[in-house]
């Protein structure tokens, strides 16, 4: 039992639905209570899907349960009759799985011509991504079963792009563009847009590309083992990783051609061939990194968190192509935690793997990095700490389906990522100038703050205003304000401190954990650039606590500053 306020992933049936909703001519049937059909709205609302999600609920309710009736065979017949899919995938949800029904036997009694696949991973162990990946592997194993004659032209399978995948549809455009440049055809994309017949066609490709470690990797490896089709499983995120990936694709094709006596010997094309107009550079990232302006990145400390693929690849890219210092990198993928830790170790000081967002939030609070690259949840956490943030990974959000071309993979993706990160960081630089020149940024601080608040609002239009997070603290503070004032006055007298002002009600706002900042000290704090301010505040307060002070004077602030050097 653990208390949960929010989760990075959905459960197994969400993963199954993502595969079904990616494909053509495939229908998902869930033996579940009506309530579990909530996932359907995620597809039509977030991804703005045009078709009705090909998902049916075979309703489990108390009445039918009591009568010992299972509607599954009837539902399968109905789906088969009304939608005539090539394949039906049957799955359970967390509650119905407890009934331990023999879904296979039940499905048989439906007696339909349609191919029926039973896929029932344990929802208490298997989360969304793992379930989707497991189904992709299972379908590959079952239907890509026959060795086929290789395609005449070099071709690849792309396994991994999936419905509700983070920028997956745009990644696919980027991959296709690069493969076009290499003169390589795409044999099958699976599961996005694939039909059952396409899965069967996969053994005719010369290589398989699986850029996402948690989605499609196992199926690509399976094709390699079964048919000797090389799997290219590296992630082309970042210029160097992309160049490496291009070379790996060429090597895989050459290898396959050699082993199968096909006339083919490719070389890496000129870089310009990968650019939008085939004349310019495919990426300005390397030069951009050397420009003087971006030197400041070397002093930036970042925190990265996300799924396995994006957290690892972005950490690597930030460290090796931007010279950003990575304070901590982490993933919510528990199953791949060990592999992640090993892979990311050279690029980060610390690693965190957890499914509990509170732990990630605490870590961010402890480290107070200059920037956070994380999920939607880290975006909220970063807003709390006033740290700039950019999202780089699922869980999916309605904003993750932009209209313009925003891939993460390939040269195009590398350009996009750097633009995105730069804009995140720039805010900090502009703010830095404003803080340095005071009034020059008239009103800017409030405007920025308002924007932050707006971002933090629940997305739904009609939802009530956000709960003021500090209410309790303020109330508590009011109660002890008098006591504090007495203490502070005492301190001021005893310590012969420079403090001489009167503590008024305005004081209350700057009280934090029973520490009082004098007006002067607070003013000094406000003069510090906003992106290091929480850190300085924390350092001063920690120091005060250790020393047993409850009043923070200007002298004390200088004292801490001096001690810190």
């Amino acid at each position, binding site marked *: *039992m*653990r*208390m*949960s*306020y*929010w*989760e990075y*992933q*959905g*459960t197994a*049936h969400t993963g199954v639905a993502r595969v079904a909703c990616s494909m053509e001519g495939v229908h998902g049937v869930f033996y579940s*209570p*009506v*309530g579990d*059909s*909530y*996932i*359907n*709205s*995620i597809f*039509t*609302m977030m991804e703005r*899907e*045009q*078709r*009705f*999600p090909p998902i049916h*609920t075979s*309703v*489990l*309710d*108390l009445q039918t*349960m009591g009568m010992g009736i299972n509607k599954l065979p009837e539902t399968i017949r109905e789906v088969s009759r009304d939608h005539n899919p090539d394949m039906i995938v049957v799955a359970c*949800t*967390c*509650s119905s799985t*407890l*009934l331990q029904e023999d879904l296979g036997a039940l499905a048989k009694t439906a007696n339909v011509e349609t191919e029926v696949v039973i896929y029932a991973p*344990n*929802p*208490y*162990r298997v*989360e969304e991504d793992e379930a989707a990946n497991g189904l992709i592997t299972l379908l590959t194993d079952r239907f890509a079963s026959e060795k086929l004659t290789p395609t005449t032209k070099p071709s690849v399978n792309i396994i991994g792009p999936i419905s509700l995948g983070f920028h997956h549809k745009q990644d696919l455009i980027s991959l296709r563009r690069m493969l076009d440049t290499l003169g390589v055809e795409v044999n099958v994309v699976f599961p996005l847009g694939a039909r059952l017949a396409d899965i069967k066609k996969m053994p005719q490709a010369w290589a398989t590309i699986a850029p996402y470690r948690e989605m499609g990797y196992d199926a690509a490896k399976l094709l390699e083992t079964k048919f000797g089709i090389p799997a290219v499983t590296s992630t082309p995120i970042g210029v160097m990783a992309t160049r490496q990936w291009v070379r790996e694709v060429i090597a895989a094709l050459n290898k396959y051609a050699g082993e199968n006596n096909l006339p083919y010997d490719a070389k890496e094309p000129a870089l310009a061939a990968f650019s939008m107009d085939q004349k310019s550079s495919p990426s300005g990232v390397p030069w951009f990194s050397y420009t003087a302006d971006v030197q400041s990145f070397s002093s930036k400390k970042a925190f990265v968190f996300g799924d396995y693929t994006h957290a690892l690849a972005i950490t690597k890219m930030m460290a090796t192509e931007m010279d950003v210092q990575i304070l901590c990198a982490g993933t919510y993928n528990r199953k791949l935690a060990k592999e992640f830790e090993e892979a990311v170790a050279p690029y980060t000081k610390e690693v965190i793997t957890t499914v509990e967002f509170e732990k990630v939030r605490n870590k961010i609070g402890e480290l107070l990095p200059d920037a956070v690259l994380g999920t*939607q*949840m880290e975006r*909220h956490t970063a*807003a*709390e700490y006033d740290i700039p943030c950019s999202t780089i990974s699922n869980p999916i959000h*309605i904003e993750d389906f932009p209209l313009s071309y925003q891939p993460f993979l390939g040269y195009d993706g590398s350009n996009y990522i750097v633009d995105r990160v730069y804009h995140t960081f720039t805010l900090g630089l502009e703010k830095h100038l404003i803080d340095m020149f005071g009034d020059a940024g008239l009103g800017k601080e409030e405007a920025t703050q308002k924007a932050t608040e707006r971002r*933090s609002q*629940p*997305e*739904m*239009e*009609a*939802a*009530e205003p*956000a*709960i003021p*997070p500090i209410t309790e603290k303020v109330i508590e503070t009011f109660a002890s304000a008098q006591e504090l004032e007495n203490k502070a006055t005492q301190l001021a007298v005893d310590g012969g401190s420079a403090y001489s002002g009167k503590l008024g009600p305005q004081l209350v706002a700057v009280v934090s954990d029973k520490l009082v900042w004098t007006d002067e000290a607070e003013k000094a704090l406000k003069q510090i650039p906003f992106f290091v301010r929480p850190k300085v505040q924390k350092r001063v307060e920690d120091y005060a606590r250790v020393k047993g002070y409850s009043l923070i004077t200007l002298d004390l602030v200088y004292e801490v500053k001096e001690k810190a050097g």
Partner: protein
Amino acid sequence: MTITPESISQNLPEADVIREDNGYHAFCGLTCVGWLYQKMKDSFFLILGTHTCAHLMQNVLGVMVFAKPRYGVAMIEESDLSAPQIDLTETIKNIVEEHKPSIIFLLNSCTPEIMKVDFEGMAHHHNLQFNNTPVVPVRADGLEYTMTQSEDCVVENLLQFCPVAPAGDKRIVFLGAVNDVNAGELQREAERLGLPVAGFVPSSTIAELPAIGPDTIIAPLQPYLAKSATQYNRQRGAKVLNSLFPIGPDGTRAFFEDLGKLFGKELDLSAREAEIWQNIEPKVAAIRGKRIFVTGDNMLELPIARFLRKCGAEVIECGTPYVNRRFHKRELQALAGQRVVEMPNMHRQIRDIREQKPDLVITNFWQANPFEAEGIATKWSTEIIFTPIYGFSGAGDLANLFSRALNRHRKLNMLDWQEFLPGKN
């Protein structure tokens, strides 16, 4: 239940109610937490559920947790499945310490229901354990309960926290969660008519709950509060108003006129109703003559259909999760001749909608975009729940929900999105 006023004829013609096989889509009971925790500011909603429940909560209402939310899921993990019993003592202790709520609603879900957890017993146990913080059980599993049904369970359970009003204290208690502005407007309207108001259930805090006694008049604002109304009558002897719900100018007029009768006042609000209709005429004009299909998932469908018909629309079908023939009697009478489908089959509805091509479909989050993709204008049914539609002052917002959707389609007419689909050009 005391049906008042007694004069209501029991024999008027009613809507034609057809019952189907429950093949409908509706959010489970847990989703009522989304707005109730915001309405009741000193509450905490603890869900005894699974990872799926947590995923549901964060997705369907589009609410991202960014501060300390006053709801959470005590997540049943694999090891709990074989544990001799589930103990929430530590969890509740932490909630009490961290959030200091005045009340904790404990909601069950599908998994504990199938595990046959003695849910009521568990809530009772914890209720005794934490004597300063009541722990109240709410049935919310998706096997049986939809979102508004569980809201009924919450409201029903609030009665025990309402002080007892002495005999002779004849005032109105409005039953149903509405936002503060809308509540204020309803109260002002009543007081303007000389009808005394004791308060609202639910209120913003437990301490503000009104006193309820044998002479209290319970005025239900929403059609999904049948259980609550019955209990308030049974346990305290309060009288329950049986009228139209105060949705739309027509419903609001009947609601207040019938309330007046209970106080011995013959009110004539015909001029007031006419004035409101006139105010919202530009919006009503957009609805008039339109063919509208209501798929049904939240129990507000009967008064919505009644309002749309009053606007001059043809309601092709009014689907609704269930009909309570006594509690909804007046609405059913107002819908005489209307096709109402209880527990509708969603797949049949999709086929009918494709065939009949209505001008507007009022439907759930799931189906809205696919219908739009087929060229049919839609309005989210859940948006109706989030909108302050009650009373005379809510009529404009109510009409606007539908007129905006219809006008938008008309205005965007020149923009051919289908031409821009892949493979079309």
